[in-house]
């Protein structure tokens, strides 16, 4: 490949991709919507930050893809890519300022052009835009030319600032709530009312760099030191880590306050759902898109048994809970039987149908006298724990925590058992699994039933938390969310499910503007994950090995 070819293929083409990406998020209104939230107060809005990250990322890719190991070519590629991205956007500004684009693209407003051109009118604005593109390109080029340590340092320091700025609404109230002299001082120093202060941003970068560099300098020593410790002590440190984690989990809602505890309970509900689906999809390899059905069944069983509205059975939450789980398990078996012979895509479509059937049944006029129809069922009492009413989200949090611990325990125990191996064998190759003597019917139904039971547990807690159930709470998006959690977190990995739920459910609650772009972002996130990290955020060790064959094992087997 000649130099010009490389410049054309990588610089121009990848730059154009970057341009189109930024153009897309501009035209769907993300840049403006996130423009109201600042990473660094009154200086760097989040919308612009995202556009800059995209530009730099594509420029970095353009330089990295260059097959010619020539630094000047790499630099040229990233600069061209940056300029190209800016060029695409300048075209938007030029065209948009002369022709009215708003009839088609509602978001192509003068405000957008002002954001893109830094508020400068006329040719100056275009020059400003191109200048920013150039700077992004140069920055990406410098990143490529730096060695690993410095590149990681810069990227991670910027990421720290981004996350701290993003979570301003989360961190500042906590610090303020403690109302100690020190925390107030820290809060004032780092945060303005709408983001990090410039001082705070710089401080955060410096503090991060110091920590990172000191860790880097001593990393060999730390690792070796830990490895040299006797097995007993290593075990103790592990238990100590678990203990600290437990204490954090227990104290968390007390520290976080009402709103964030509410967010935590939503995350908790989805962790439970994710752990259940993890058994069906992650372990047994059965892609179930109708998972919300069991969530709905759990909710409605608790609602019918505890609410005085329709039947007035007069049961309390604790009596209704096991019945709800059992109903979920039975539903799992009943819905599992017809799809026993289906595989892959066919199974996904059939189960998708089941999820909708349950919702539509509940909505139907026919079942209205028993299930309440579209009005749903209200006045479900809160759980009562030995005379203590669990009203606040903080209380429900503990209920969910207990549920999650139970489900994690069951998942772990099952995974390393005869049944768990049978599930995984079935996931790998159904025919051969059967030829090993595995009874496919029983094994599949057990997977469906276990997953459904966990889902019903989540649904039961959901019903008593909200106090009322409506059919429209159980739409197909819940199933999609849970599938996305399991895939993005890492199939078959329990910590992955927790992280996936926190990222996909927690973040959108914290960034309310996000809600409108939720499905768009999920789609992009899934595509990007499949391309860059198909094993998920926190993969099961096995999957990591499977998808990124480490040279170590190859060398070992070759020897």
């Amino acid at each position, binding site marked *: 490949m000649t130099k010009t070819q490389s410049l054309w293929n990588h610089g121009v083409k990848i730059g154009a991709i970057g341009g189109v990406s930024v153009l897309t998020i501009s035209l769907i209104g993300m840049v403006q919507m996130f423009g109201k939230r600042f990473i660094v107060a009154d200086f760097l809005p989040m919308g612009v930050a995202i556009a800059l990250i995209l530009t730099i990322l594509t420029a970095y890719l353009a330089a990295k893809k260059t097959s010619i190991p020539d630094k000047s070519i790499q630099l040229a590629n990233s600069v061209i890519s940056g300029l190209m991205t800016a060029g695409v956007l300048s075209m938007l500004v030029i065209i948009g300022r002369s022709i009215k684009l708003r009839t088609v693209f509602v978001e192509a407003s003068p405000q957008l052009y002002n954001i893109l051109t830094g508020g400068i009118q006329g040719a100056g604005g275009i020059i400003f835009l191109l200048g920013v593109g150039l700077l992004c390109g140069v920055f990406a080029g410098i990143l490529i030319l730096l060695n690993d340590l410095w590149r990681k340092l810069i990227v991670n320091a910027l990421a720290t600032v981004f996350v701290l700025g993003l979570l301003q609404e989360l961190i500042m109230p906590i610090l303020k709530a403690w109302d100690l002299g020190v925390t107030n001082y820290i809060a004032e120093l780092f945060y303005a009312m709408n983001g990090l202060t410039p001082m705070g941003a710089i401080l955060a970068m410096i503090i991060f760099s110091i920590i990172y560099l000191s860790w880097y300098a001593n990393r060999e020593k730390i690792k070796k030191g830990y490895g040299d410790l006797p097995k007993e002590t290593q075990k103790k440190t592990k238990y100590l880590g678990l203990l600290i984690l437990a204490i954090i989990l227990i104290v968390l809602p007390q520290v976080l306050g009402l709103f964030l505890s509410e967010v935590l309970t939503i995350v908790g509900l989805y962790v439970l759902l994710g752990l259940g689906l993890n058994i069906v999809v992650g372990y047994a390899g059965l892609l179930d898109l109708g998972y919300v059905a069991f969530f709905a069944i759990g909710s409605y069983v608790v609602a019918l048994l505890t609410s005085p509205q329709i039947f007035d059975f007069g049961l309390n939450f604790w009596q209704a809970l096991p019945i709800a789980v059992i109903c979920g398990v039975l539903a799992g078996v009943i819905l599992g039987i017809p799809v026993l012979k289906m595989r892959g895509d066919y199974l996904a479509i059939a189960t998708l149908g089941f999820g909708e059937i349950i919702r539509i049944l509940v909505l139907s006029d026919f079942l209205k006298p028993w299930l309440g129809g579209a009005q749903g069922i209200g006045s479900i009492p809160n759980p009562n724990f030995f005379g203590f009413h669990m009203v606040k989200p903080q209380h429900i949090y503990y209920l969910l925590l207990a549920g999650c611990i139970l489900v994690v*325990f*069951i998942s772990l*125990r*099952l995974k*390393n*058992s*005869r*049944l*768990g*191996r*049978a599930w*995984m*064998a079935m996931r*790998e*190759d159904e*025919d*051969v*699994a*059967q*030829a*090993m*003597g*595995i*009874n*496919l019917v029983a094994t599949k139904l*057990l997977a469906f039933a*276990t997953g459904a039971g966990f889902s019903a547990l989540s649904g039961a807690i959901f019903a008593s938390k909200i106090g009322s159930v409506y059919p429209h709470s159980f739409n197909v998006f819940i199933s999609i969310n849970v599938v996305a959690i399991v895939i993005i977190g890492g199939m078959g990995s329990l910590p992955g499910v927790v992280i996936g739920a926190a990222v996909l459910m927690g973040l959108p609650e914290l960034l309310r503007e996000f809600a409108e772009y939720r499905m768009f972002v999920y789609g992009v996130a899934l595509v990007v994950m499949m391309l860059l990290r198909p094993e998920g955020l926190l993969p099961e060790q*096995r*999957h990591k*090995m*499977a998808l990124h*064959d480490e040279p170590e*094992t*190859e060398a*070992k*087997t*070759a020897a």
Partner: protein
Amino acid sequence: MALLSIQNMTKRFGGLVALNALNINVKEKSIHSIIGPNGAGKTTFFNCLTGFYRPEEGEVLLNGKSIVGLSPDRIVHKGIARTYQNIRLFPNLTALENVMVGYHVHLKSSFLGPILGLKSTKMEEAKAKQIAMDLLKYVKMDGKEETLAKNFPYGEQRRLEMARALASQPKLLLLDEPTAGMNPRETQDMMDFIEHMRGEIGITIVLIEHQMRVVMNISDIVTVFDYGKMIAEGLPEEIKNNKTVIEAYLGSGDAADSH
């Protein structure tokens, strides 16, 4: 007495008769080879024995008891295990897990045992692990139990598949082209291994094979298929000089003359 007795077995796919009224007896502790040109129905024959296909007519008796119509997993319980022509391990499970899945039929625990951590379940698991480790050692793969099956080289994958099949402790082992794609040295190793297996474990082996050197060296008896029919059966020496067999493989002399 025959361990496996196949009587008048016929399998049709629509109008195609894949297996035509087969009568075969496999003696206990013998190595019985099935040979024949491509498409002769050898693998279909295996699929009928293991329950993946159900023969339309005829009877299959294992130790005098009929196994026709049983599902594949039930047939494993009766004591038949197999390997595949194109290796079919569980690629993302470790070597140890692969072999332990093979031992599945001898384990009893289901749902509650492992959750409650019952003593019987724990003992069972420990035993399964021990047996799997022993089998890995037997196929000379000890020390590699934590490697994913897909990361093994070809020869080791074949041996691992063999260990997985042996884990179910079968009476009858069906090997579908165990030396396919192997170089002469690997082939020799595999032949030694098969003979060894028969001698040490006392297992009965039916194998499909294309390499005549292997067939002639290790078989006690050879059955030849062509177009779903059995065209010859006998000792390796007899088969070597059998006219029908030579014709099936090389074509009849008439066709050659006409050129």
